[in-house]
């Protein structure tokens, strides 16, 4: 059963891009990654789901309720973490949690205590006095408090330190076990790979591809930069590259996917090496790969 169903959603703001013809659906109990560079349309899509903005075209449902007509009922079962967290300047963390839970007519104080402890948040502090990362924790807990069936996270991990991030991913996995459906937007490929089942890649307002995370893992990308002692001996690497990023006399930089051993054995045989670095590629490069691949298909 599809919990979130988006069909041909289109929205343009004035001159800026918005999104075009976005279609995807998320099944029950799935963690669905939504990745793309800044300004690609992730937040626009999410804002549409929340009915903060209205579409020019297309429709969206959550649990078979129309996002734009039945928004109030959707929100009873929805938790949302915005990409930029802003709350009321006169409130303490605990006040916000109380205020939030009163909207659901539920007492969530136990759950707020447990979650605050797990994420290491002091609930007696004024929200305004908190750091960026701590504000993010407030947003995450606030979204989980009322035990929603659907969670929408817009770049939830930015500002969280690695330990807290891990704790956060643990919480997500627990929620998933309880059958919660999660839409997880991010611009970090790595963290999406960690928790998501499927992922949609969006660029310039359009969905480029929707993939099982397994297949993404299979062609896990790495960016390889090699510098040589002598010039022009790198033809053998050109064949391995999924995409060559930069090439001149003494260096080559390319995207590599697939078996790492092939690359390593090629490097081992090469006695013209001066230096090698293997890093995580920027998302842009990976997207570019998808982009080019997509146009070749046509």
């Amino acid at each position: 059963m599809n919990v979130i169903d988006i069909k041909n959603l289109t929205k343009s703001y004035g001159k800026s891009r918005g999104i075009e013809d976005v279609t995807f659906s998320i099944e029950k109990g799935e963690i669905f990654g939504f990745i793309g560079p800044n300004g690609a349309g992730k937040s626009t899509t999410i804002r549409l789901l929340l009915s903060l903005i209205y579409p020019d075209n297309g429709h969206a449902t959550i649990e078979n309720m129309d996002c734009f007509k039945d928004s109030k009922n959707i929100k009873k079962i929805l938790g949302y973490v915005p990409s930029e967290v802003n709350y009321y300047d006169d409130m303490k963390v605990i006040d916000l949690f109380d205020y939030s839970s009163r909207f659901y007519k539920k007492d969530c104080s136990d759950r707020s205590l447990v979650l605050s402890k797990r994420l290491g948040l002091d609930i007696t502090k004024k929200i305004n006095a908190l750091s960026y990362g701590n504000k993010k924790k407030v947003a995450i807990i606030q979204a989980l408090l009322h035990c929603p069936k659907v969670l929408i996270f817009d770049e939830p991990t930015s500002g969280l330190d690695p330990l807290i991030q891990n704790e956060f991913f643990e919480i997500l996995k627990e929620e998933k076990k309880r059958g919660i459906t999660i839409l997880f937007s991010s611009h970090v490929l790595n963290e999406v790979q960690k928790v998501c089942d499927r992922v949609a890649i969006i660029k310039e307002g359009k969905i480029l591809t929707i993939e099982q995370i397994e297949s993404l893992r299979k062609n896990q990308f790495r960016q390889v930069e090699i510098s040589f002692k002598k010039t022009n001996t790198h033809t053998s690497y050109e064949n391995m590259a999924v995409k060559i990023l930069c090439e001149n006399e003494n260096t080559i930089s390319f995207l590599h996917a697939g078996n790492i051993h092939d690359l390593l054995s090629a490097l081992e045989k090469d006695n013209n090496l001066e230096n090698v670095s293997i890093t995580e590629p920027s998302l842009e490069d990976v997207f570019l790969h998808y982009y080019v691949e997509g146009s070749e298909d046509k």
Partner: protein
Amino acid sequence: MKNLFFREVKRNSKSFCLWLVILVAVNAFMFVAFESVAETATNTEAMLSQYPEAFIKAMSLDKFDMTNILHYYASRSYILFMLFGSIYSVMLSACILSKEEADRSIEFLISKPITRNEIVGAKYLCVTMYVLLFNLLFSISNFLFMQVFKMDSFDLEPFLLVSVGGFFIHMIFASVGYLLSVFITKTKTIISVSFGVIFITYFFSILASVEEKMSYLKYLSPFSYYGAEDMVINSALNPLYLIITIIIITLSVGLTYFFYSKKDITA
């Protein structure tokens, strides 16, 4: 909706108390001076000769009997109360909705189970309650002050008219400010714009009373609808103005509901 209403009541309670206390205090100071003004006023001409003619006309000073405490109030504190009460009302109403967007807390609020209409309704209810309470408490204190400082007795009917008039003026500005804040969400801008509306319409009311040719301006200014002169001296409210008031308020609130439910919140 109840949750949001009580939250707004709590959030706006401090500024309410502050404004009320200051205006009641200013009013009290005005009444302290009443006795000495009333004594000079027995010689009306001597008093009026102190002021330029246009000023006398603008303030209707020639028509007020300064030995009557109600007339004294109408010519002094009432003007302050009209103006500053309007400023308070407009600051309350123009910020209550737009602040969510200016502070971007709207993303939190919209993600809760509450419709946009309920948001507009709960916040307007809070504004109405505070403006009503503001006028009620001010008028009660005003009545008590008059009992303390009066020299002769005064009529209750014109007193009630003046009290109601202030409330209507404040509600007009509160409603118009509420509507404007749907389109102008930057706090600084919306405050300047609504202050502008108050002062321009006040200026219109003065022009209308000074210059015969421009008397049509009175239809553009709520301050003219509930001018002290009509209510205190003639003890009358023009039903036409009452109708205009009701139309302005209903239209503003209706349009606020309409536009707010359709607007894209992009902040």
